[in-house]
């Protein structure tokens, strides 16, 4: 689905597709073992993402990776970690958060309207949690634009703020 939230010239914000999100915590020294379980290499560079077999892993904290992948694969991915011989935690947060995809020349300006972060510090594939207005959001710079995801219960606030920023940018 791609429900349009707003357009601003060639820039648009739309509802991100429903995807599986599994939050993995493990010790940084176990990164190789965690990568083997995931089936692809998990980044050891903070705020960077890696990809493999349809999944992405976002390195959000020294001991934390967010696995994002196809909804249908979430059971299989979770099962790989179930009998792991190392200490880890894997939490399915797919239904907790919702995402918004921002594409176009003014996507950075839309985000900057609510976000204190220097967006230029994130190169493609880069990811981080930060604030958008008063809400913790996850920003992920993808090849075709930004993915912003946040707690479902804050979605109305986030959308309202995004629309307010767009209104400001549109006014002469």
């Amino acid at each position, binding site marked *: 689905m791609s429900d349009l939230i707003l357009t601003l010239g060639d820039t648009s914000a739309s509802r991100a597709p429903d995807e599986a999100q599994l939050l993995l915590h493990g010790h940084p020294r176990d990164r190789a073992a965690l990568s083997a379980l995931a089936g692809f290499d998990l980044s050891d560079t903070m705020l960077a993402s890696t990809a493999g077999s349809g999944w992405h892993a976002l390195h959000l904290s020294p001991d934390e990776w967010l696995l994002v992948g196809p909804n249908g694969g979430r059971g299989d991915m979770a099962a790989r970690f179930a009998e792991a011989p190392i200490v880890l935690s894997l939490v399915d947060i797919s239904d907790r958060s919702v995402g918004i995809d921002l594409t176009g020349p003014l996507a950075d300006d839309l985000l900057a309207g609510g976000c204190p972060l220097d967006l230029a510090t994130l190169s493609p594939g880069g990811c*981080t949690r930060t604030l958008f207005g008063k809400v913790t959001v996850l920003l992920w710079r993808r090849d075709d634009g930004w993915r912003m995801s946040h707690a479902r219960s804050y979605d109305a606030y986030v959308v309202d703020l995004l629309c307010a920023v767009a209104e400001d940018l549109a006014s002469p």
Partner: protein
Amino acid sequence: MLLIECPHCGPRAEIEFRYSGEAHMVRPAAAAACDDATWAAYLYLRDNVRGEHAERWRHTHGCGQFFNVVRDTLTDRVVTTYPAGHARSAAGGEI
């Protein structure tokens, strides 16, 4: 607004963080056995320095990690930051 260097995420705006009190407070080893004065000191007594102060911060709206900041309480200048569990760094003097 302060710009604080998270040891894991780099420089970020102050509003992404929460202050968490003086750093390097050591819990008495035999907590159940220690006397009231020792326990009270651990709970309540803080240096309240005028100048460089080592304190704990948490990158709440970021990586979520606790870490340490040496901040000058007079000028509000952040002198240095370093990961939790590390000794107070050279810029700030002894532990």
